[in-house]
């Protein structure tokens, strides 16, 4: 307990770092995933921009990246991180790698949620002369907004999970904090303090996501 009290300043810094890492990965990975997911949805057979080559390419890419265990992906993607963000270690490298991995997971979630939009509604929009871009912004995204928000909330939890291994490549955050000051110092109180904070984060975000989704669905 005494240890925890002396470590409190570090704990707050770690919490801030986790938020920073997760926030930025959600931003970049979320955007990339949205684009890829839309790509999957729009190019699948029978859709408005059906294109077998593009669909297969994205599909194979998503299926290839998704099953790789993240801690291995982290190591494997290090050279890529060096090229992209100039460094293979630290918070920037971890943000890049998580965003990259998350993008493919998010793509699938986006695709699945877009598939909940009734094809008839798309057809109705086409029947009044709406083009693909208009359909994306006025039909697809608004009609799938509720499930999309819930999907992104789900992803947030996965991102917190992924960010916990940042310590392995010299990043910060609650995961690194728990490893360094809790696990390695044989101090379960410190470990559990980090766990508790993570639980609080996840609960808050889940609550926020549910609330937003309810608003979007007007239920």
């Amino acid at each position: 307990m005494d240890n925890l009290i002396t470590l409190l300043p570090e704990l707050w810094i770690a919490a801030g770092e986790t938020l920073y890492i997760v926030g930025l990965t959600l931003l970049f990975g979320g955007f990339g995933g949205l684009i890829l997911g839309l790509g999957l949805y729009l190019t699948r057979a029978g859709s408005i921009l059906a294109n077998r080559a593009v669909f297969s390419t994205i599909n194979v890419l998503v299926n290839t990246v998704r099953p790789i265990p993240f801690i291995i992906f982290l190591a494997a993607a290090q050279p890529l991180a060096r090229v992209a963000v100039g460094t293979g270690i630290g918070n920037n490298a971890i943000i890049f790698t998580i965003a990259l991995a998350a993008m493919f997971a998010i793509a699938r979630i986006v695709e699945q949620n877009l598939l909940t939009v009734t094809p008839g509604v798309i057809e109705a929009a086409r029947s009044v002369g709406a083009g693909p871009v208009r359909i994306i912004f006025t039909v697809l995204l608004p009609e799938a907004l509720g499930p999309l928000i819930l999907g992104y909330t789900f992803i947030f939890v996965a991102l917190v999970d992924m960010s916990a291994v940042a310590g392995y490549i010299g990043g910060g955050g609650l995961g690194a904090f728990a490893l360094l000051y809790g696990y390695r110092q044989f101090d379960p109180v410190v470990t559990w303090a980090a766990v508790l904070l993570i639980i609080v984060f996840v609960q808050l975000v889940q609550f926020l996501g549910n609330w937003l989704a309810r608003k979007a669905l007007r239920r």
Partner: protein
Amino acid sequence: MSSPTPLVELRNVSKVYPATVKGGADVTAIDDVSLSIDAGDVYGIIGYSGAGKSTLVRLVNVLERSTAGQILIDGRDVARLPERELRPVRLGIGMIFQQFNLLNSRTVARNVAYPLEVAGRDKSDRAKRVAEMLDFVGLADKAGAYPDQLSGGQKQRVGIARALATSPALLLADEATSALDPETTHEVLELLKRVNREFGVTIIVITHEMDVIQTLATKVAVMDQGRVIERGDVFDVFSNPQQSASARFVSTVVKGVPSRPELDVLRARHTGRIVTLAFRDDTVDQTRVFGELSRDGVAFQVVYGGINEIQGRPFGHLTLALTGDNETIDAALDRVRALTTVTEVR
């Protein structure tokens, strides 16, 4: 009286879907269909599920591409137009659907405004038109409601308001009442009648419900396996179908000539001679027919059939069981034959 160019003309149109499995057979959804629809018509297209009706109607606004033939809208072939150039064409063709297909994320008013946004109309113009349309379909008080707060009939009325917002000359109705109960169906059909009468909108109605055609359409085409097998005035097709598939359809709403098994049942119940009389329009005077029968004391009982009315013109078949001595019946039937078609069934 037909205008020099029909509003919609299909010339030898086919739609073939390539085989879904390698080495499989191609699927012909529409097989060499030619059809001509004049401005102001309410044209019904009927047929069983899978006959190709929904595909056919989607070829008209090119939601689906035909694989052969020409599709002329106001004399202009739209079948091969690139997607971009179809936009103005589609703004001139409204469409309503079985499942209504409203945008759940938008209010009723914003659903109706949608085609106007696509057409690039400015905001005040849109608001004015939306109010007009909601007034027309009787939903002015629901402008701020969301589709999931409406009944099926109300949703379809929103669908109609949306389809007509850009003042199209043509309305495609794809099984528009099939998801509605009989009373609501009636309301929606009455509304569509008004659309045709008050705005002069030409309507193509796809349905498997014969009574929809009966109340709404003036002309009808019967589809079977991707082909149009019969077409003409609704009255002609209903009162005197030429093809067996059309006759089967007609018999779902109009009890006509008894079928073999039905006849066996009648036979078991009635010992006398059984004849079927055709009544069509005002050419056959029922009073005279029955007068001739009963004049010499032939007793009769109506055992099967019915009289229907389409566009104020009655038609139908009545099957009678006659009792009396054979010669009197023969003489009476000869007199009736001079008035209408008599079929004696054994």
